[in-house]
């Protein structure tokens, strides 16, 4: 790890001022940033520890029923917050399907938004990666790309966004509240992440020095609580990133879908909101036929970026399943295996 200056910021403004120094990074939980520093992908000269900043660790309910989540709220604390889990159960489920209990205890909400792709070529400083070093090329394009993007990718980058949390957040119109040298602003999470295009190194809409201070979910999204799920396919039962995932939420009234929220994870450089599919479900009777139609619509523009054509079909199927589970209703208690297609095997006990 490169030597760096360590600065502990007492306030957001102090942090932002400190970040004027070139090659600075913010450090909160550290679960992604420290890892990237260890493997040489991030080599900052200055690390600004924002974890002690006052006032960023609260979950605040707005009068209208929306919620403002401080950027330093730990993933586990948010997922296990009773009111939050009742109001946004699929967001809690997504959080609990990510990483491990230890990582969730340390990782912050803001850090979750800022985590980098799992693309192995991004993680390997010896490989060419336009996202890591602008203009260096993309070794993933002709490389081992079984798990890479099928939507929104470009010849310059085929990486996917790894977050589970952000998938339902995007579906629920979450906003990112940032503070920067020029004041504060809100950014729609959907627009927070850039598609790679010809500038894959531009990962987010953050301007230099800008710091995430909160994530906000609007009140309207709380109406989906009775019918909201997050589903995630993995290569082992737990502690693995998504092959593909889907957040699906429905408002059903009088046997008809009034409103739908759908986003896919693991398929693109950003959590992929499927507004066309959402629109196709409005006023329709919920069921397999409608869900399959919506899923086909959502994946209509998908193309394999490599050995990953299966992900397109898988994304279709997981969307149908997630919508079906959402229709069946949010479980009364968090599933033992959050976001897993497997119900619990609780009965199985060891017999010597």
């Amino acid at each position, binding site marked *: *790890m490169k*030597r*760096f*200056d*360590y600065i*502990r910021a007492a306030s957001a403004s102090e942090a932002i001022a400190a970040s004027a120094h070139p090659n600075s990074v913010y*450090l909160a*939980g*550290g*679960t992604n940033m*420290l*890892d990237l520093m*260890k*493997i040489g992908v991030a080599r900052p000269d200055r*690390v600004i*520890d924002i*974890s002690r900043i006052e006032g960023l660790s609260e979950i605040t309910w707005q009068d209208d029923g929306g919620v403002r989540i401080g950027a330093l709220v730990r993933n*586990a604390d948010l997922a*296990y917050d009773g009111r939050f889990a009742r109001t946004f159960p699929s967001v809690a489920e997504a959080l609990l399907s990510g*990483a*491990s*209990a*230890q*990582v969730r*205890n*340390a990782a912050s909400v803001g850090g979750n938004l800022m985590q980098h792709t799992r693309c192995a070529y991004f993680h390997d400083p010896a490989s060419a990666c336009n996202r890591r070093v602008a203009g260096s090329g993309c070794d993933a394009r002709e490389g081992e790309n079984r798990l890479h993007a099928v939507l929104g990718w470009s010849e310059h980058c085929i990486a996917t966004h790894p977050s589970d949390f952000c998938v339902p957040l995007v579906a629920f119109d979450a906003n990112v509240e940032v503070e920067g040298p020029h004041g504060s602003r809100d950014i729609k999470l959907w627009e927070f992440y850039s598609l790679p295009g010809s500038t894959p190194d531009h990962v987010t809409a953050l301007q230099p020095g800008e710091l995430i201070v909160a994530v906000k979910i609007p009140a309207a999204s709380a109406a989906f609580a009775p019918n909201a799920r997050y589903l995630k396919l993995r290569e082992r*039962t*737990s*502690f693995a990133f998504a092959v593909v995932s889907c957040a699906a939420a429905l408002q059903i009234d009088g046997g008809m879908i009034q409103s739908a929220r759908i986003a896919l994870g693991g398929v693109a450089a950003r959590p992929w909101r499927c507004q066309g599919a959402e629109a196709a479900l409005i006023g329709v009777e919920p069921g397999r036929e409608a869900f399959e139609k919506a899923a086909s619509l959502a994946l209509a523009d998908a193309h394999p970026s490599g050995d990953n054509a299966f992900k397109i079909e898988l994304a279709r199927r997981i969307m149908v399943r997630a919508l079906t589970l959402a229709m069946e209703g949010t479980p009364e208690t968090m599933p*033992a*295996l*959050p976001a897993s297609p497997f119900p*619990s*095997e*609780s009965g*199985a*006990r*060891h017999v010597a």
Partner: protein
Amino acid sequence: MSLSISTIINGEPRSIAIDDPRVSLLDLLRERLDLTGTKKGCDRGQCGACTVLVDGRRVNACLTLAVSVDGAEVTTIEGLARGDLLHPVQAAFIEHDGFQCGYCTPGQIMSAIGLIQENHAGSDPERIRELMSGNICRCGAYQGITEAVLEAREAMSEKNRSDAA
């Protein structure tokens, strides 16, 4: 640059000068404080061997900068037993053969204690398995680990009940 941190490690207040901000909590414990019970398996938060409690929460010590535990309380595997008295989780791991090589064991035990305190698993073995999945055991002692957590949780809540009575 040298930074000084104040921390309580296994109940003992310590003031520690850290001459290099790159030092992780894991390397602080292992290489500078001679608390080598906490193990390094991957150094990247991917195996759980370095799990310790920071202010009562289980975290990966490898992904924690030493300087960031300033003011915090750290509990490691060395801080559990009192003389010859084992913590119930430690005793249950022995009884259920919840380890083989023993290398992941300190992390498993600290994680199990964190899990029991978090109290999100109850006595459901499936929830225990899920919430212990951040601790890889390559020897494959998982069944014993799950049994040990179940038994230790029971023993600890009985103890609490009898203490309350």
